[in-house]
């Protein structure tokens, strides 16, 4: 069973949102409500309990003579966001019921029949991906199309992407592809493209790699994502030290107080 990943290349994304729709259709997810946001062409906001793939629209003032593929600028860029399926997954580590598991494909999967809706995973996700469903109460996010992968199929979003902006495959092959692609873009004069693959952070790499132009933060991609459990050891150590200090202090207080009382008595 190979370890798989998404490579979402936003330099190829045309913002058609086919991935969003295919994801919802395949997984039977609700709509997000029929509300106009006024934020460019994005009306679903962000990845959440009822949007597992989300296309972000980043607008900058265009300059006549330069289209979005010009090296000089990025005017209107689109990028399809998704659960990152972290190697060190905050949600998985925080889940008290064992609902969240790692699959044989490397993805992080919430078992809806085990989830009790405690919401620990929500606060533990460094990317703000996991969300509790407002009506149902349980947590939901991208399943990495576990059911499709089990059946040997490509995840729905990658299957429908018309421009191959969303690629799916063996993770190391995609990493190689990403670095080649970056080189290709640089040769075309596009120097602001980067590969977002946070391997040197505490999330220890993800199963959703991105190629974006400009600052990754524009696309909801934090420069240094941190899994909250990275601080577990430090936190426990601090707690132990703090507890020790408190205990010591209390003892000291009693001891010193005892001596004073003894002196009083002697007087």
């Amino acid at each position: 069973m190979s370890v798989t990943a998404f490579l979402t290349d936003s330099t190829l994304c045309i913002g058609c949102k086919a991935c969003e729709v295919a994801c919802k259709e395949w997984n039977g997810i609700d709509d997000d409500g029929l509300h106009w946001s006024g934020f460019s062409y994005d009306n679903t906001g962000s990845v959440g309990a009822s949007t597992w793939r989300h296309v972000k629209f980043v607008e900058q003032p265009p300059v006549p003579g330069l289209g979005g593929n010009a090296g000089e600028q990025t005017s209107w860029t689109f990028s399809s966001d998704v659960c990152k399926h972290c190697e060190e997954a905050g949600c998985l580590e925080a889940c008290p019921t064992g609902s969240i598991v790692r699959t044989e494909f490397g993805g992080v999967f919430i078992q809806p029949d085990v989830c009790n809706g405690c919401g620990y995973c929500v606060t533990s996700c460094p990317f703000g991906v996991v969300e509790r469903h407002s009506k149902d109460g349980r947590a939901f996010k991208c399943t990495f199309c576990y059911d499709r992968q089990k059946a040997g199929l490509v995840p729905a979003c990658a299957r429908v992407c018309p421009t191959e902006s969303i690629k799916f495959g063996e993770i190391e092959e995609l990493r190689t592809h990403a670095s080649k692609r970056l080189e290709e873009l640089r040769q075309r004069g596009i120097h602001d493209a980067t590969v977002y693959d946070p391997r040197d952070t505490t999330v220890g790499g993800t199963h959703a790699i991105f190629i974006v132009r400009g600052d990754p933060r524009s696309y909801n991609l934090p420069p240094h994502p941190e899994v909250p459990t990275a601080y577990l050891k430090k936190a426990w150590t601090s707690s132990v030290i703090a507890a020790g200090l408190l205990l010591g202090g209390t003892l000291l207080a009693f001891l010193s107080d005892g001596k004073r009382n003894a002196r009083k008595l002697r007087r």
Partner: protein
Amino acid sequence: MPGLGTSFGRGGATTAQQDLSNADAILIMGSSMAENHPVGFQWVMEAREKGAKIIHVDPRYTRTSAMADVWLPLRAGSDIIFLGALVHYVIENSKDFRDYVVHYTNASTILREDFRDTEDLDGLFSGWDEEKKKYDPESWLYAGAPPKKEAGSVPGHSEVGGGHGKDRGGEAQDTGKYESDPTLQHPRCIFQVLKRHFSRYTPEMVERFCGVPQDIFLKVAEIFSSASGPDKTAAICYAVGWTQHSKGVQIIRTASILQLLLGNIGRPGGGILALRGHASIQGSTDIPTLYDILPGYLPMPFFGEESRTLGAYLKKHSARTGLWSGFDKYFISLMKAYYGDSATQGNEWGFHWLPRVTGDNSHFGYWLDMADGKLDGLFVMGQNPAVGASNGRLERKALAKLKWLVVRDMVETETASFWYASPEVERGELSPDSIATEVFLFPAAGTAEKAGTFTNTQRLLQHREKAVDPPGEARSETWFMVHLGRRVKGMAQQNHDSQNDPLRALTWDYSTDGSEAEPRVEEVLREINGSSLVDHKQLGHINDLKNDGSTKCGAWIYCGVFPDESRNRANEREPKDLLGHGWGFAWPNDCRIIYNRASARPDGSPWSERKKLVWWDESKQEWTGLDNPDCDKKIPPQAPTEIYNGHGVEALGGAKPFTLHPDGVGWLYVASGLKDGPLPAHYEPLESLIENPLYNQQTNPVADRKKRTDNPYAALHDARFPFVLTTYRLTEHHTAGGMSRHLAHLSELQPELFTEVSPELAAKQGLRHGEWATIITARALIEARVLVTTRMRPLCINGQDVHQVGVPYHWGYKGCVTGDVVNDLLVISEEPNVRIMETKALTCNITPGRRGRGRQALNQLASEIGKRA
């Protein structure tokens, strides 16, 4: 598409979408391809990734611009100035592909002495009849072509009706003994006429009247023209952003001229891709839902002398040379498919049973009749005109004049519910109590619920299977039409009026299947392909058609799609190469790139190794290559041309790629077949803010304004409407919304009607992002949410700021997301050749705040329109 039809011979995209990946540059104009054809756009992306330069010219910065290398903002409606300036640039800088131009276009042909250009007559061509408001096109003919009297009929257009029939490339039956000058120096040769015609379409003009800075224009001109030649090719993609203008056909003509000059037609990576508005629109002109053509672009007979006898009709529409020399074969085979054994030589194959067209029966033609109470009933299928058609208020009010209305759709559309849910009911203009129209809503099967064939944008027929049964009583269109036909025919059998003769003669023996008696759709495609009436075998090729009544064929251009009883080529799904041979069937003869004889030099060898497509194989003595040759496979390149006295395709010889034209070449200049001139001239939109900078003639003189009190226009310099209005579509919705606004997963992506305005216009008019605005034209007012974006920008036109207001048109009053009907703003107008309305360039006003409710809206409209200019 007479723009392509008259230029090249066939009214279809000249290339396949896959072939765009072979291009060295792609100009996308009049289209936001990434938004409206996202799947096909993958080939543009592939070309870009291979190094092709992508140029997008559009009033708005769209998702297509975001993928392009160069984006040029353009004043809506100034396309011919821009494209004309490209033509001018190519000629002035000798960037034309001279060998191609000399051999494969009519550049060298000499025109009559009495031809006068728009340069001579200030915006009119010779032959203008001011009283009749139309042209007598005789002076447009080639010098030496037989004049009207000799030819026996008017060369050029019919007296009445639209121009779809001209898709077949004009009606010049006989080009005569025309003269030509291969040096292209003769002052009356087409190349020189063209050069003079476009001499004032300069980069300065582009800057002043399109709003595109000269340096950027020149950069684009250089990119596009340098990506053309023996080693390189460039493609053009357009959609209704070109079509839906009062001179749409001539915009497409200008692009055709450019591509012919650069040698980009019939070659890989070249061509003009007409992106069709939705599934099978190409199919619906091939097997037409139009009033003025029969299947395969055969003209409908019009009332009058020229259709009195079959002989006269055939004479008018046949050509001596080229593929149209077989007109009688195509037509008589169609009559045999219609009327079977009842069609005999004695009754002129049933020619007299065909109705005669007596006037404008296009959508707007009959709709205005409806508005005047002249129509009793209407079938509406695959259409939602209450939202989709211009001047929606007039359209909906006209529906109330009907006695009965049948709507077949998957949902209850705005058209079906006009009688209780339309804005006219809310405003008290119509009342359900007083509407006498009886409305029948039939549930229709969806795409996945029926089998059948699509013909897509690249002339590709693809069969699809039924995935699931339609729910409840929903049925396919084929089911509805076959069973309706059976009943109507049954009634005709009972009634012996002679007016029912055609119905009695009509063959209608489609067999059905299953408990719902669903017709077997492959039977229909077999009939369209055609068969021999002698041995009852399917026909394999257009050449098998006969004019003696021994073959029947439903559409000659589709001949070969079903070459034997069990082989449906539309249902073949094993692509063997990039062009997709083995997947579906492209008409004609499975040519993926048409006119591909032009991909080889006159001697039959490819222009270059890099751009080879078809070539002459000396050893096999036939045309071969990467596509099926779009010429007679066995005619060698050296075969001489005998256009003056020869007959048929053979007369064209071996080096004429445009086989539908009687002279076998691409037409830079269209001697006959267009109603508004042999060359494109810039006219301002019917509603415009500025005076025509090129001619005194302000607008297309032949455009039909359909002006009436309920279809008024804004005047030039009308101070009430100081901004340009342009309408468009979004990826997230489908046309009038029947297939998208009823689905939550699509509706949530674009839930509300909005208008895109520049920050400058917002400041000028006091519009605030996210709040409401009211948009007003001479016809109506609507409200929309304001999206202030730098993707819209004011253009400096002749020293003044011109602001453009963009509005997508998908919303209506039914479905899970609703909004005002944008097309209410539009005016009903007709481009003269295809009778399409102008939707891309009008004038409007925009003010902050919502419109009035109910009757107030009418008062508000009256007061806005009543304001003094």
